[in-house]
């Protein structure tokens, strides 16, 4: 979507010239042995984001298990292409992105499914399912 033919993921191609996804930079110390960082992630949700509308909260704390994140050098290019940062970590790290002009396109670095309980389903999962119900296969 950015027209970068050799865009790479640092896990698959360490040292590639244009890594759009890079090892996570976290305020937490990395786990021993280079294991994926796992734990709680604080995310501030942008006021006009879909994610904020679903959670009805400005800040959420969610479980994550992830070793990679968006390379901040490419954030501007992603924003210009419509992939907007919808949730940020304490140091401004991109934690949630949403695609503008799309009925429902949300990607998170955290795992909302881990917080879901039978009596308290996760709002983002419910929002996704609701969008699938109303839009779904009706799209061309």
């Amino acid at each position, binding site marked *: 979507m950015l027209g970068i033919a050799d865009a790479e993921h640092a896990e698959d191609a360490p040292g590639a010239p244009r890594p759009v996804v890079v090892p996570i930079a976290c305020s937490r110390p990395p786990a021993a042995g280079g294991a994926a960082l796992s734990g709680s992630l604080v995310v501030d949700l942008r006021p006009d984001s879909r994610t904020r509308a679903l959670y009805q909260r400005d800040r959420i704390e969610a479980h994550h298990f992830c070793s990679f994140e968006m390379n901040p050098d490419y954030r501007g290019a992603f924003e210009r292409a419509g992939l907007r940062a919808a949730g940020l970590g304490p140091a401004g790290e991109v934690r949630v992105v949403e695609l503008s002009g799309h009925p429902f396109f949300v*990607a998170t670095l955290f795992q909302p499914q881990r917080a879901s309980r039978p009596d308290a389903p996760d709002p983002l999962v419910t929002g*996704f*399912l*609701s969008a699938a119900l109303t839009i779904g*296969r009706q799209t061309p």
Partner: protein
Amino acid sequence: MIRIGVVGDFEPGFESHVATNESLAHSAAELGVPVDVIWLPTPSLVGPDAEETLTGFDGLWISAGSPYHDRRGAFAAIRFARERGRPLVAT
């Protein structure tokens, strides 16, 4: 019946994979609608049939679990959802 395709290589030992299925069941119960959840292994979305497969789903969930067995399959699903306006969540 809502059909959700979960794009990823299911591992029963991965908590997040099990939680993906469970969370969809929780939310479906809340909405009062039946949901059919089908995992789509990434290598199965690489060939020319991928588009036809993906067309059959109301929403695509791009699963956790890195690296994928074939990331081209995950890319194909993400591109399909982006270009067709099909609901997508990636966690």
